[in-house]
């Protein structure tokens, strides 16, 4: 019996035992928080997974498979026009990096071999900040304004920070290894506008099917809201056409799916959700049986689902446990604490939110349920935006990796810039809205 080699297991057992022994299940607050966690999880599953997340995964899949990364990467070369590099860097995050593991190598590459520290930092910051899944979920759960503010803030910000870093740390004419990037030659038998159109149709579906209920019963917004399923259906027909002509799926497959969807729509007119689900299943099936890019598309889509849903579920449970549900409150953390620290729109609240965001690690999308919980407990809009802008881009673990590439000084300046600018942006947003 070797206690030394068994010690880890022993400690593990002891820890779990003590945890269970002292489990405060006789404390109401604790029980409420546990139930709150699951209520929030159920709410997410019911309200957001089917209509928001699933289409987003498809969109992310399209981006990964059909958009030629090579076309974008050439903007980051050593001889690229600087302003173009910044521009592309600030928005290419949506297109190039839906997986955080791609961001770091690209960042290092742009920094060391490409356009330099400015565009590299711009890319590093904007990549995680404007990932399409996060924007969609933010807009849907935290509100349209927040979603827009997040995108605009992130894009502008990323360029500003990049420029500031580039001016603080000007690069002497280093012998940049003029070794060009090793860009894979991709057979691109699809013109860029076709891919863009296909993507647009998917995005339109996503936007209209998630069109939020307005507070007033009139006006354009309300009209669109009442008609949203019809608009979505129309976009669905466009999608069918796109699948046939742009993605080149066999006509008969698409026709079968369209008929199935129509059939369910006629059968269950009060439950358009059912038709939507049938459409999703149908499309998934015909994609997986069409070899080549369609198969890659559904594979990537499924890959995203596998990667993101468990983490999101965990994030939701944690958020629900700590901060409660939108309707009933009831998290472990008392609401007043939240309000005291990040309520209103004081500079302090914004800075505090910004710092927390910078240190905390947020797996993709988890910032949304956590922020939702915080806002329900009194966090102001300003600090909320500050957290959104500082959170996804940096965290303790990724600061370490950045440090490996940039060195201590530059990393610290970068983090400082992010925290300060996030706080300022939050404060401005809070004051205006």
């Amino acid at each position, binding site marked *: 019996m070797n206690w030394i080699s068994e010690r880890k297991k022993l400690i593990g057992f002891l820890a779990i035992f003590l945890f269970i022994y002292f489990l405060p299940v006789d404390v109401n607050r604790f029980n409420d928080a546990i139930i709150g966690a699951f209520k929030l999880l159920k709410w997410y599953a019911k309200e957001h997974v089917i209509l928001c997340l699933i289409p987003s995964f498809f969109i992310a899949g399209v981006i990964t498979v059909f958009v030629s990364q090579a076309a974008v990467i050439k903007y980051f070369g050593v001889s690229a026009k600087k302003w173009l590099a910044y521009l592309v860097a600030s928005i290419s995050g949506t297109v190039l990096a839906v997986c955080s*593991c791609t961001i770091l190598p*690209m960042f290092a590459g742009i920094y060391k071999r490409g356009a330099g520290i400015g565009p590299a930092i711009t890319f590093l910051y904007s990549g995680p900040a404007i990932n399409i899944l996060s924007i969609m979920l933010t807009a849907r759960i935290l509100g349209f304004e927040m979603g827009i503010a997040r995108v605009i803030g992130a894009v502008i910000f990323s360029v500003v920070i990049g420029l500031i870093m580039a001016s603080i740390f000007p690069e002497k004419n280093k012998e940049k290894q003029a070794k060009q990037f090793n860009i894979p030659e991709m057979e691109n038998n699809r013109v860029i506008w076709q891919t863009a159109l296909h993507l647009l149709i998917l995005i339109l579906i996503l936007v209209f099917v998630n069109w939020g209920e307005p507070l007033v019963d009139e006006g354009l917004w309300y009209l669109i809201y009442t008609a949203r399923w019809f608009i979505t259906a129309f976009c669905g027909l466009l999608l069918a056409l796109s699948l046939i002509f742009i993605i080149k799926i066999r006509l008969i497959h698409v026709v079968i799916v369209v008929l199935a969807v129509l059939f369910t729509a006629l059968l269950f007119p009060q439950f358009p959700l059912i038709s939507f689900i049938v459409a999703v299943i149908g499309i998934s099936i015909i994609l997986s049986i069409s070899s080549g890019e369609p198969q890659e598309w559904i594979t990537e889509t499924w890959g995203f689902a596998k990667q993101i849903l468990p983490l999101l579920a965990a994030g939701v449970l944690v958020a629900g446990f700590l901060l409660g549900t939108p309707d009933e409150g009831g998290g472990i953390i008392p609401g007043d604490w939240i309000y005291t620290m990040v309520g209103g729109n004081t500079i302090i609240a914004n800075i505090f939110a910004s710092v927390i965001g910078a240190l905390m690690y947020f797996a993709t999308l988890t910032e949304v349920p956590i922020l939702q919980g915080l806002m329900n407990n009194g966090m102001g809009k300003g600090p909320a935006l500050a957290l959104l802008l500082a959170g996804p881009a940096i965290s303790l673990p990724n600061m370490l990796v950045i440090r490996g590439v940039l060195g201590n000084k530059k990393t610290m300046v970068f983090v400082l810039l992010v925290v300060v600018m996030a706080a300022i942006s939050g404060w401005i947003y809070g004051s205006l809205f």
Partner: protein
Amino acid sequence: MIIKILGVGCQKCKNLDKLMLTIRDRYNLKYEVQKVTELDDIMEYGILMTPGLVINEEVKSVGKIPKEKEILKWLGVE
């Protein structure tokens, strides 16, 4: 023959690694699979996206898991 998998450790890189080992066993090939995980070393190959597949110091694929047919072609297997 030396195969190098360039990647910082994300799921795709691990999958590519597994794939190369599976191919080796299935077709009874002889090569060594090395994992390159340091950013500096990865960048020596000039790639911007991981995973990267390097066969005998030549970069064959960047940013994705290539199809088995392609890999076999690069390895010179019919």
